[in-house]
């Protein structure tokens, strides 16, 4: 089953932006950091940002694993700019889906336009690196620049960061999965078992604290020993 299918996400053209237009989300900022690391010539960053703000880029279309836009559409010098992002592997996605299903709040956060750090960190630990590194981002452009990303591609990369800010699902799509496919996968994830009860969660938390205390437990017999009394008291409070 091709889970990358579905309609592209299309973001309307961004008009001229005055002043700085920084990314407002932590993942948008991370995206920008990765993109900027791919640059061959650091001095391209400034014209790249200026291009993103210039209003010259047309609507941005995001498909599974790629995004594109037309620069100066309608003019004789129009250029097609493209970004390719390395898709996450199926096993990586499976790991991501498991993490996504682990907390009810994760899907709710995505639906509300938020990307929980806890989700991304847990997915990272399971081998699913959602945020693309510099090596995962590749650009192409019709211009005759000899190195990529050219400033046109940089402009597109910066604009993508703004779109990612409001829609973390766009990031998923760049990594190869649509929202619908993700939600479907969470539903049918075989590794998702009904969760633990609140009491069990709570007991686990207290058990961890007790183990922490036990690491430092006093060695005395407890006869007139204040540190033993304090230890017993501290553990009792966690029971």
């Amino acid at each position: 089953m091709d889970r990358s299918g579905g309609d592209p996400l299309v973001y309307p053209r961004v008009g001229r932006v005055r002043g700085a237009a920084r990314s407002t989300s932590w993942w948008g900022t991370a995206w920008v950091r990765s993109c900027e690391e791919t640059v061959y010539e650091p001095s391209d960053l400034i014209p790249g940002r200026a291009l993103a703000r210039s209003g010259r880029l047309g609507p941005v279309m995001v498909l599974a694993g790629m995004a594109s836009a037309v620069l100066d559409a309608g003019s004789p010098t129009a250029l097609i700019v493209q970004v390719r992002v390395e898709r996450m592997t199926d096993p990586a996605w499976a790991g991501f889906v498991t993490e996504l299903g682990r907390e009810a709040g994760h899907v709710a956060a995505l639906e509300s336009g938020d990307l929980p750090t806890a989700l991304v960190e847990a997915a990272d630990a399971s081998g699913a690196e959602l945020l693309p590194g510099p090596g995962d981002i590749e650009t192409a452009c019709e211009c005759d620049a000899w190195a990529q990303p050219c400033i046109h591609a940089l402009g597109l990369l910066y604009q993508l960061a703004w779109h990612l800010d409001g829609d973390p699902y766009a990031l998923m799509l760049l990594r190869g999965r649509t929202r619908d496919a993700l939600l479907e996968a969470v539903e049918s994830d075989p590794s998702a078992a009904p969760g633990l009860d609140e009491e069990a969660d709570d007991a686990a938390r207290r058990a961890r604290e007790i183990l922490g205390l036990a690491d430092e437990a006093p060695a005395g017999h407890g006869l007139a020993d204040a540190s033993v009394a304090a230890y017993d008291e501290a553990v009792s409070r966690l029971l």
Partner: protein
Amino acid sequence: MSFVPLQGPATLHLADPPRDSEIEFTGPQRSLRMPMRGAIPVLTRAMRTADAHASVSLLGAGTLLAMKLVAAGRLHRDAGDTAWLVGPLGPEDEDRVRTLAEARAKPELDAGRAEEILRGLLDAVADTMTRQPAAASQRTWVGAAPQRTATERLADRAAEADATDLVTEVFVSLRIEAPEELLLGGQVSVVPQVHELDAATHVVDASELWLTASDQGHGHGFARTAKVSAGVALRRAAGAWPVLDRLLRRQVPDRLVLDSDELADLLEQGLGALAAIGVDVYWPRGLRQEFVPQARVEVSSTAPRDAGEEPLMTGLFGPDALFSFDWRLALGPDPLTDQEMAALAEATSPVIKLRDNWMVIDPATARRARTAIGRERRGSNRIKPVDALRAALTGTVEVDGAPVEVHAGATLERFRDRIVDASTVSPMPPPPGLAATLREYQLRGVTWLAELTGAGLGACLADDMGLGKTVTLIGLHLHRRDRALATGPTLVVCPASLLGNWEQEIRRFAPGVPVRRFHGARRDLAGVSDGFVLTTYQTMRADHASLGAVSWDLVVADEAQHIKNPNSSTARNLRLVDSRCRVALTGTPVENNLTELWAILDWATPGLLGSRNAFRKAWAAPIESGVDPALARRFAQLVEPFLLRRRKSDPGIAPELPAKTETDQVVGLTQEQVVLYESLVRTSMERIESADEDARRGLVLALLTGLKQICNHPAHYLRQENGRIKGRSAKIDLLDELLGTILAEGGTVLLFTQYVAMARLLERHLADAGIPTLFLHGGTPVPARERMVADFQDGGAPVFLLSLKAGGTGLNLTRADHVIHVDRWWNPAVEDQATDRAHRIGQTRAVQVHRFVTEGTIEQKIGDLLTRKRGLADAVLGAGETALTELSNAELRDLVTLRTPHG
């Protein structure tokens, strides 16, 4: 508990459920059998003890392993759902259990037996670590969807195959569950529920949505996407009340156990925040009983009453009166007992058991119970008489910033009724010694004042001007003497322009009662023991020390709007003049400005309305913002008994009023006027006495005219068209007083003077005061006159200035309800004609005529002549001023000589 013998053998005694298991430690002298909760701290540190017995080490190591498993979430409920057990264990976990058992095996204990003990211990620890017994979490709540059988589910699935309209749009609510086991620990649990957006009664627990896998069908009728919407809705709820975050961190947001602190937070913050975003919270029936505060105010002790005295009042509000205030919560109709209040106050958790029922109480309620108990312990549940009265009148009392319904005890209730009914009880007989027949409403006024002052309370009589506040007050003065209530003189503080009027009315209506003016340079209070003392606000302000030294029975503030600014030195110094009771008189509608009303009533009955700031906060600001009509009603209940205001137009009053009342307003002369007056008399009389017949006539007329102008205003006589107006003539001060009251009532005035020059002065003065006027004089062309008359009748200006002669004919000015004659025209017929411009047949309003008369001057003497010897006056004055030229020198001198007022 710290000393537990670890060197001897320890035994695990398993029980069912495992949490009830016990560990028995053995020492050289004794053995100690401990429940799991007590043993776990000891066992977790047992491994650190070098000489611990092998069996202790086994249990210690086992306890730590159990902790690790619990920490890793290796927990499940047993089949009967009565206990929590360790497991399912992965291969690694199984390994650890076996390794541990083998390592600790001893000759007397083989590995198999050790493993058996170990597994029992793991469950015992696990079950102890979960605070809530597993059974408590069974879904036994009211209203929950019954568990469906497998067959039903199959049927559902079949039915659903063609169901196309599954619900996708949802909202969430929270259901509180409170099984006994949780309540014992001060906890409750929260279960999120998902409702169909358009059919709130279509509801399932959130866990149902999450646990129904997509291939199992949707027996609940919600689509799969409903789960996503529900998650978003829960996230929003967690945004409003962050404790719910824990729910979202769970794979299935099924339920959340709230500890005491979280429950308190839910009650204090959460409910409000959740309600604000439309998330309802449902409580089990009976758990959230409403505690209704009940407060009671009653006399706790009164000063011993004199035998035979009316049982009412004086004692009740005397300085020794004590009122106690009892505040407690009631559950339904039954107030809590002291013990129950104490239990409430001492509760450390919002969950308490009261009258055999579990309840969840707001922390604020517990705090209030604590405050109430603290109040009682400190003895500060005593309240001042005015506060008690306020509580009795409004039926509420402010407790910790919130209004609480309060009931008055029987004695206070009787007292309250008497105050409230004071203005409607049948009037008492007229006070003896009053040389006037009081009208019905005036008698009611005296009765009302007598009741309130008799209770030691103040009052504000705010009748419309012209209803006879002065005579009413004189009636009160006489009444208090008649009943032997008065112990000192009555002090009247009024504007200087009204001093003469007061004195005149007292002499007229209470002949024989001593009246003294405390005014001017030679003022003194020596020997004052009874009767009236009249003073002005100005004198009072300067000399409050002398006034304060007298033990007054009654202090009256006439035109009490003079003390409407409580920060003025007038108001502050008046408060320093002590008396048994105080009465404020005013003709302006004080009730329209709450702050001014406060200032006046707070002087009359200090403390009744609370401090100014408290009043602003509790009454004025909310009433003016108009949000709470009930508050305005309560305020009226509080204020009405102390404020009597009758209007001329009131149904009960109007028929009693004569169509026309005429009042001579007696004012004094200023120093400047006295000097001008006396020197004019002196020089003119010398010349008149030596003049021949023809010259004499002219000189007499010039003298009379000059004197009348001086009485009006020095600037008038001196022809100072732009001269200073204020402070040179009491007529101007009186005019300002009258106009202030009349215009505040919405009244209109015809202002007559026979001199155009005086009219111009008045016009300028009123323009400076921002009062619109019309001005008609002999030189006004006819079309302009008609325009002005029409303008006045349409309400274009409240004051119409007329020169008397011009006003005499053809003018219909029936809109006016007051007529002021600034100076006298010595022909009554002409004066009446002018007055009749306002008072005509068909006029529905009563007209008041005010005639300004300067005291001791020719004006007053001619006025006396007019009233006392009407016939003679007609004969003498019929022809107007020229008749006066016929008087002899001696008669003339007698007429014009200035008499100084009696001091």
